[in-house]
């Protein structure tokens, strides 16, 4: 997938560079782009590491576990079959609370465990579709990487986008769940 995207981008640049007579600028940009990535990573480094330290403290302090317990009623509504499967429920709770806190490293393994429990053979169950939809809607309390990116780009208040991000995620998750219900077909 990435192969095609990357080659596509380079090819389009080459064609447009030739058409616009900007081939020299395109070559120069190739070197600048990699340098800009290094610069960006350095600028992001401090904020991202600090945030990652705070998250580690929250995790060690049991915030994820508390959040997981609070989420149980919601999870049982979303994934009814988890009622009879405590291991699946635990994985789902871990996945959702890690997502909310922005613990990407913890969210994916838990999500995979939950996906395995919810799969029915090689066909996706409704619950597995819901799990994927919710994970791709990215509901998180503090999108740290994006805020660090804003800070690196000189934003006056990097975190002032949070309410807009929360509302966007919520609407997107709600729309995804509604679409899951509408597109669902009985008989697989």
């Amino acid at each position, binding site marked *: 997938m990435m192969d095609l995207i990357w080659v596509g981008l380079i090819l*389009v640049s080459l064609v447009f560079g030739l*058409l*616009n007579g900007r081939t020299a600028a395109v070559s120069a940009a190739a070197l600048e782009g990699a340098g800009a990535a290094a610069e960006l990573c350095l600028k992001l480094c401090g904020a991202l*590491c600090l945030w990652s*330290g705070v*998250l580690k*403290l929250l995790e060690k302090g049991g915030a994820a576990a508390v959040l997981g317990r609070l989420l149980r009623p919601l999870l049982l509504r979303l994934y009814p079959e988890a009622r009879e499967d405590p291991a699946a429920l635990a994985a789902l709770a871990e996945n959702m609370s890690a997502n909310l806190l922005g613990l990407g490293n913890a969210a994916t393994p838990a999500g995979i465990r939950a996906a395995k429990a919810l799969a029915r053979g090689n066909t996706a169950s409704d619950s597995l579709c819901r799990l994927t939809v919710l994970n791709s809607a990215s509901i998180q309390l503090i999108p740290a990487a*994006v805020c660090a990116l804003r800070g690196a780009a000189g934003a006056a208040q990097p975190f002032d986008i949070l309410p807009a991000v929360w509302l*966007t995620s919520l609407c997107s998750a709600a729309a995804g769940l509604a679409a899951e219900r509408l597109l669902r077909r009985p008989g697989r």
Partner: protein
Amino acid sequence: MKGLLLPLLLLLAALPVLLRGGGLYESLTEGFREGLGVLYRIFPPLGATLTAVWMLRASGALEAFTALLAPLLGKLGLPPEIGALLLLRPLSGSAALAAGAELMERCGADSLAGRTAAVLLGGTETTFYVVSVYFGAAGVRRTRHAIPAALAADLTAFLCAGIFTRLFFS
């Protein structure tokens, strides 16, 4: 009050660890190390995609593409500059981050386009990556309606990013 927020958060995160029997400083530094690990993993794909995005901009393709999409995006209430970001977002997380970084550098982080890009990056995930990881791990071949539903969520997020950013910031 606003200046107290971060110090309070640090304290709030630290106290439970202290009460639970310590290891506070060690956990904090471990977190920093993990953050460094994230950057270590982010840099190679970010460098590769940022190279491509920078070339795209220098060639004039980004401008042409923006002009092409402007009427459609205008109708949807989105700034025309975020066209490339919209296309890349569900496909590749690092390419979307690269497009977002380019956009913030060009238009400013606090411009309407820069803010819309940030809200969009924060409020969505790399849909096709999530789908491939979860279904791949579970050994599921028939994804049924998962991809259309996830894309409906993405489309909603694009529209909402435009709406809420304008609502809060203009």
